[in-house]
């Protein structure tokens, strides 16, 4: 078939609508949606050519298709969790050192502020790179929407970045006392903002419909907070400040590693249902999380035995960094796997862990009357579609 074949000719301008602009006008709501010929999503639906479900071993589903959409975030987001956590934790450590560090902690404070502002800038870069439309990154600051953790996070990250920048400049450049004092105040403020910065990412994941994230909503924020601390500790291991700062950072990191390992174990417990917890054990996510725990454990052990040798300190820092990175990539991968499995959502909600959980514990604000569907005891009632 040569170029004369209109289909062949048209495939060059293949936008999925196949409309001749001289005959038809394209001004509809989605006429601006750019589209190429083959589409990944359809491939996913197609390649699982459903063999007839012999018998619903795992309970009813729609040809086994996922009920949720997989999170669309790419590698930049877990990387941002790392840099964001690092910046936040450094901010906190710097402020703490400033407050309670006594003398000789200035190198630590300066290094923390440098890492903080560097981490913040790197975070902004990574977040903008992951956007579908990076040019519209400023839209993140369009509204103040308390129900959106990402919106809150953006405000926190922006102000944290500004403040840690303001704190870092006087520390790095020769500047007058007044400027240095202002820098210290900004440093304290940055430390205060570092706290939510390092934790909100956990809440961001919890605020999704992905079963494993939603179920582990209490552990995730703490896990991410301490991951941030580990990142900071490990970074400062790799780039130790002079004076007592190094020891402070090392202790900070060590305890954080222990907490991170404990919290990542707690993830599995809080997930509860085997079906919900399965992504944390199986596949890439499982491997990453197990690897993270091993790396962090190793880093902690190296911390305990290193006694002043720079090689061991660098090893500990590297292991710590790798461990906390692996943990974050593991949590993301677990989320993707969990979203792909419809039975996670179904079994979870059938067991009363959906909306019923709120109405049963009476936690929800008053506006939610007791449901006529799944009653408070978690057993399904007839009206709500359960077949007697």
């Amino acid at each position, binding site marked *: 078939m*040569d170029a*004369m074949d*209109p*289909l062949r000719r*048209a495939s060059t*301008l293949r936008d999925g*609508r*196949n*409309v*001749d*602009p*001289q*005959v*038809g*006008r394209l*001004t*509809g709501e989605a006429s601006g949606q750019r589209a190429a010929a083959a589409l990944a999503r359809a491939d996913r639906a197609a390649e699982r050519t459903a063999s007839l479900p012999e018998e619903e071993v795992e309970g009813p589903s729609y040809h086994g298709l996922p009920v949720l959409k997989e999170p669309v975030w790419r590698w930049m987001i877990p990387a941002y969790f790392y840099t964001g956590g690092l910046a936040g934790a450094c901010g906190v450590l710097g402020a703490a050192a400033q407050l309670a560090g006594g003398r000789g902690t200035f190198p630590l404070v300066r290094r923390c502020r440098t890492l903080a502002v560097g981490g913040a800038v790197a975070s902004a870069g990574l977040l903008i790179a992951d956007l579908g439309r990076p*040019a*519209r990154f*400023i*839209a993140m*600051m*369009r*509204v*103040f*929407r*308390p*129900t959106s953790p990402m*919106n809150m996070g953006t405000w926190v990250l922006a102000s944290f970045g500004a403040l840690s920048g303001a704190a870092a400049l006087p520390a790095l450049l020769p500047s007058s006392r007044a400027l240095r004092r202002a820098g210290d105040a900004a440093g304290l403020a940055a430390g205060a903002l570092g706290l939510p910065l390092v934790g909100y990412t956990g809440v961001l994941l919890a605020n999704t419909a992905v079963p494993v994230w939603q179920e582990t909503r209490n552990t995730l924020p703490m896990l991410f907070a301490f991951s941030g601390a580990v990142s900071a500790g490990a970074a400062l291991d790799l780039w130790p400040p002079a004076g007592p700062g190094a020891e402070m950072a090392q202790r900070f990191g060590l305890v954080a590693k222990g907490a991170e390992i404990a919290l990542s174990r707690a993830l599995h417990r809080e997930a509860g249902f085997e079906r919900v917890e399965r992504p944390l054990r199986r596949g890439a996510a499982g491997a990453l999380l197990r690897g993270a725990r091993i790396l962090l454990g190793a880093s902690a052990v190296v911390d305990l035995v290193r006694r002043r040798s720079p090689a061991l300190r660098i090893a500990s820092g590297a292991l710590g960094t790798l461990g906390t990175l692996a943990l974050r990539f593991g949590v993301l991968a677990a989320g993707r796997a969990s979203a792909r499995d419809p039975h996670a959502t179904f079994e979870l909600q059938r067991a009363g862990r959906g909306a019923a959980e709120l109405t049963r514990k009476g936690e929800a604000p008053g506006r939610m009357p007791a449901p006529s569907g799944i009653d408070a005891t978690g057993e399904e009632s007839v009206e709500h579609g359960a077949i007697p």
Partner: protein
Amino acid sequence: MPKLPVLSEWPVARQLVSGDTSGLGASAMSERTRELVPRTASADRVVRSICPYCAVGCGQLVYVKDERIVDIEGDPDSPMSQGCLCPKGAATFQLVTGSHREQHVLYRRPGGREWERIPLARAMDMVAERVKRSRDETFEERIEDPGAKHHGARVRRTLGVAHLGGATLDNEENYLLKKLYTALGVVQVENQARI
């Protein structure tokens, strides 16, 4: 770089002014959203048409703007369809404005490997000559074949030219086709009624 929203347009400013703490509603709306109108509102004219697919005969409204079709949807006044359409009827916009439609007269010479483009008028002349030539060569005033049952009966017809097609055509088109072919003596005229 998108232009920075002027302060008064900045939704957060609008939220503060209107005391909207949640930022979920009108304060977050962009200017385009507020002025949104259906594209048919700005159409030059609406033409009443009938779906070209099956024989139910659902009514269709064709919206036109700048001599191009903007939208084709159901005609709520039609007693047959009351504005409804089936998937094919709903896809009529892509049928009539699709890039799959060939827009040039193509010609394939005997033994040729590719299509060639030729002007419409010349193609019509060539077809007219061929119709006349084939018709005159194979015209039978009477049945010559001795073996046939009605040998010698007057037939005044040709079996050298045949026609196929008509169920997707208008009545007026079918009328002129049948009128012309019968005058030429072409009897092998058929259409989808008998596929």
